[in-house]
């Protein structure tokens, strides 16, 4: 062994000795291929939400039974993404973080989150939290009042807490943080409150802010030419970044979606309004924007571009894909931002005929012009989107995405926006246009064509995350409480279980001692439940809990 190798192995042993809780960058990178743990939001830095585990499969799923249930003691919507490491599960709610014995469901520790009573004023779409991040023995999360917090993963004790911004003017945080190249990255919410959105990098060691990249350039910066001159529109132009980005360690690039422009009334901000309704490719160390791609220029429809950006290798190309709120399924070369495919994945898309593959720009319809000019219009998909935040799954073996899609339209008229700090800033009158039949479909989608291979409709749409597995299954849940497993080839529902409250959480699967487990949070709430006025949900009890399932013996 030469000196170099000796030094390298010494360094390695130091890493290994930092304790059972240590998660190195290498662990995070390998997460998708290590089914024994779940270390990253989306089950891998590419957020495919696919596991090769196949003990639970089309044949055995009928023996799937709950092994434990853990009460979150909270009546809000439960959107948490559970992490699992060394037999411990970590979950979050808006007001607590908990570590659970993954084997027994017993609580190891629980740490409360305190925030000022006024905070819920600025949470547009549910008092929620979407999960934590693990790195080198610490657990990281964000809070509704826009703090970033690090806890000791072993004890739950707070290690540091850094305030990102004063929440009172409309900023909040619900995002699960991302660890990329040793930097803790978060994005802010508040697109309906006249904020100026941003993404931030923190030092996970001590909470020091390393960078902040605004999603809206200030005058003089590149992109500022897409905002009206001699106007403060950019200062209140929206562009929140409220869902976790993905990370490609080989390209050392973070991909992060940017939300809607604000206010919704687009006539006050003529121009493309970069980088609202876009995705950004960022340098994780500096926050520098490498390139961008804009999905919805001059957005009047609340078509956030925040939806998860799933990484995959497709026909030898490194791609990132997104099922956008605006009804198009985008496949983009993640090395350079070039658009490879963009096709409609829902039945009705009114605002654009197509996306021009050469220019990357939408070919917009007269209806889009009418909406901007203040005419009363009905457009599909609605502000809920063709797909809302609930993350899809991508099965790389089948080259198929599985997503909960929405079939809802919107009656809309742009009106004078009235600003009041910390209050909704829409500039639009709106109501929903409901379809005759099902309001949502779980779809199997070909990413390159947008074509639906199969779909499963429900009267009340699903807004839960989706998981697919090597066992030929797709897991998701309904707001009426059913946790469900589907045949990934045919869409036949093979199994379901009533969880007691509605599901808007994110199912995951993991393995321990040779046994495959599936876990999901139950707890109705969030955007559809609050904004639809769907009376059929009135009899769904609130109350959050974590359910974990495994196969019972034959």
């Amino acid at each position, binding site marked *: 062994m030469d000196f170099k190798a000796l030094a390298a192995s010494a360094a390695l042993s130091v890493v290994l000795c930092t304790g059972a809780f240590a998660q190195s960058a290498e662990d995070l990178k390998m997460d998708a291929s290590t089914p024994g743990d779940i270390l990253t939001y989306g089950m891998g830095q590419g957020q495919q939400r696919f596991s090769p585990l196949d003990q639970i499969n089309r044949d055995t799923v009928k023996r799937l039974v709950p092994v434990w249930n853990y009460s979150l003691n909270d*009546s*809000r*919507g439960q959107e948490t993404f559970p992490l699992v490491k060394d037999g411990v599960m970590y979950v979050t709610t808006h007001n607590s973080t908990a570590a659970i014995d993954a084997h027994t469901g017993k609580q190891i520790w629980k740490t409360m989150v305190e925030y000022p*009573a*006024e*905070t*819920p*004023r600025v*949470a*547009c*779409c*549910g*008092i929620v939290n979407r999960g934590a991040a693990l790195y080198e023995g610490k657990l990281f999360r964000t809070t509704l009042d826009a703090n970033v917090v690090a806890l000791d993963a072993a004890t739950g004790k707070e290690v540091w807490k850094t305030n990102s911004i004063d929440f009172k003017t409309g900023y909040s945080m619900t995002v699960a943080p991302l660890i990329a190249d040793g930097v803790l990255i978060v994005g802010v919410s508040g697109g309906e409150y*006249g904020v100026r959105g941003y993404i931030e990098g923190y030092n996970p060691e001590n909470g020091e802010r390393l960078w902040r990249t605004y999603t809206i350039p200030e005058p003089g910066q590149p992109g500022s030419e897409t905002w*009206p*001159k*001699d*106007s*403060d*529109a950019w*200062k*209140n*132009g929206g562009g929140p970044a409220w869902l976790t980005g993905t990370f490609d360690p080989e390209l050392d690039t973070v991909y992060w979606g940017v939300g809607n422009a604000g*206010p919704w009334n687009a*006539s*006050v*901000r*003529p121009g493309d309004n970069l980088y609202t309704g876009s995705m950004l490719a960022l340098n994780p160390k500096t926050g520098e924007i490498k390139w961008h791609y804009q999905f919805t220029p001059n957005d009047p429809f609340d078509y956030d571009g925040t939806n998860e950006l799933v990484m995959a290798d497709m026909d030898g190309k490194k791609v990132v894909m997104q099922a956008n709120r605006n009804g198009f399924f985008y496949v983009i070369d993640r090395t350079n931002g070039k658009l490879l495919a963009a096709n409609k994945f829902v039945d009705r898309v009114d605002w654009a005929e197509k996306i021009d593959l050469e220019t990357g720009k939408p070919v917009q319809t007269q209806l889009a012009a009418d909406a901007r000019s*203040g005419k009363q219009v009905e457009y599909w998909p609605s502000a809920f989107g063709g797909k809302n935040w609930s993350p899809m799954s991508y099965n790389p073996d089948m080259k198929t995405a599985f997503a909960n899609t929405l079939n809802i339209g919107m009656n809309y008229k742009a009106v*004078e*926006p*009235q*600003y*009041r700090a*910390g*209050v*909704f*800033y*829409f500039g639009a009158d709106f109501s929903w246009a409901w379809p005759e039949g099902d309001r949502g479909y779980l779809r199997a989608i070909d990413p390159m064509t947008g074509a639906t291979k199969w779909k499963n409709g429900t009267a009340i749409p699903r807004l839960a995350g989706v998981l697919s597995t090597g066992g030929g299954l797709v897991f998701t849940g309904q*707001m009426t409480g059913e946790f469900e497993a589907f045949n990934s080839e045919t869409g036949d529902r093979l199994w379901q279980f009533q969880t007691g*409250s*509605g599901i808007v959480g994110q199912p995951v699967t993991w393995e321990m001692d040779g046994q495959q487990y599936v876990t999901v949070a139950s707890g*109705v*709430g969030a955007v559809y*439940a*609050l*904004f*639809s*006025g*769907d*009376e*059929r*949900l*009135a009899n*769904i*009890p*609130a109350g959050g809990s974590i359910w974990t399932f495994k196969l019972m013996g034959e």
Partner: protein
Amino acid sequence: MKRLAWAIWLLALLAAPVAVLAAADGTAIPDVSKGASLYKQFCSHCHGINMVNPGNSSFDLRKFPQDQKDRFVHSVTKGKGNMPAWGDILLPDELENLWLYVVTRGGKEPPPEGTLGQDGQPGSDKKASLETIEEGRLTACLPSNGGALSRRRYQGGAGLDYVLSEALAARLGLTLEVVWYESEPEEESDPVRETYALLSKPVCDIVPDHPLYESNIGAPPADRAAPPRWSTMPQFWTQAMQVDLVPVAATRPYRRAELGIVVGPKAANRTIGKLSDLAGLTVGVQQGTLGGVILTTQLPSDIKANSIMLPPGPQFLWRMEEGRFDATLIDTGAFDNHKVQNRITKLRLTDYRHPIGFNMGIAYRESARALGARLDAALKALLDDGTVEKMAEDTGVTWSPPRDPVVARALTTSDLFSMR
């Protein structure tokens, strides 16, 4: 809309042959459609659209007891359990409209008898000491809907005249008490008489934002006048009741109200030094206002041919945002108010100011000489050290220093035709 009322009143002063249009919006009467829109803005994201909140994780407002208005007011303004407090954001009439929305089950049922409260002022301070001005307190009358100058909040207020009154009270070692009044731009309303009536009743000790004209200070313009509705108005009081007017004096001026040219994006890079610089632009004329009259009488004919007439009111500048016209002459205060409401604006106030302007001081009862002297000294100190200008900046008021003469003789028709 006190500002509009002034503009209209000044026209009356000129006796100009222009129709005065009323634009009263009747805010005092609860309106269920306003309640519905407020509900969407403030409440829907927790209590659900149409008050349908699946899962019952927030209170089901469809079941709120219709006979418990006090409980409603308390929970909304102070917060309860998971519910945040909204008292510092909501306006009093907004709370009324919200209650109407809830108590009528979203406008689907008539309100049960007696549920709307007696005076339309729920939870307002009902202390009995209305007849006298209290020892140790400086009571200021401020319009509740005065835009960037004064805005009522459920708890406290905002705007230049509000913070200025606070600072003056502090300098005088007094506790500020604010009485809010409703100034409506109705044909018969006259802001000068309203100020005389408020001070004569007496409802308060001071009324800021008083234009310093010889005819506005000293002996009253009439023997008797009716005060506008005010927040601590006793239940027996009706708007038909008049009070004997007493003489009124005013402090030195603390700002100058002016008319400026506001332009839209088409004139983004244009320098405007005189009305003829508006050539090629569509000019909007706000009917029934001083700015409108000046435009009508002074615009060069080629520009006038390309102008459009629009009714007065806060919607006027929004029509400009929509691109209906590119330029107008308007009270800079109206533009300030527009900016308070519209955080994103394509409009710009140019440097042009019409020579007509009004020094604004603080009115008080002439008999309160010692109070007046102390107020004047305190105001001088706040002006000299730049505090007033800073306050104006913080509250979004376009501030111009007062000009001589401190008290103008009268506004004459020839003033209208003076050009810079």
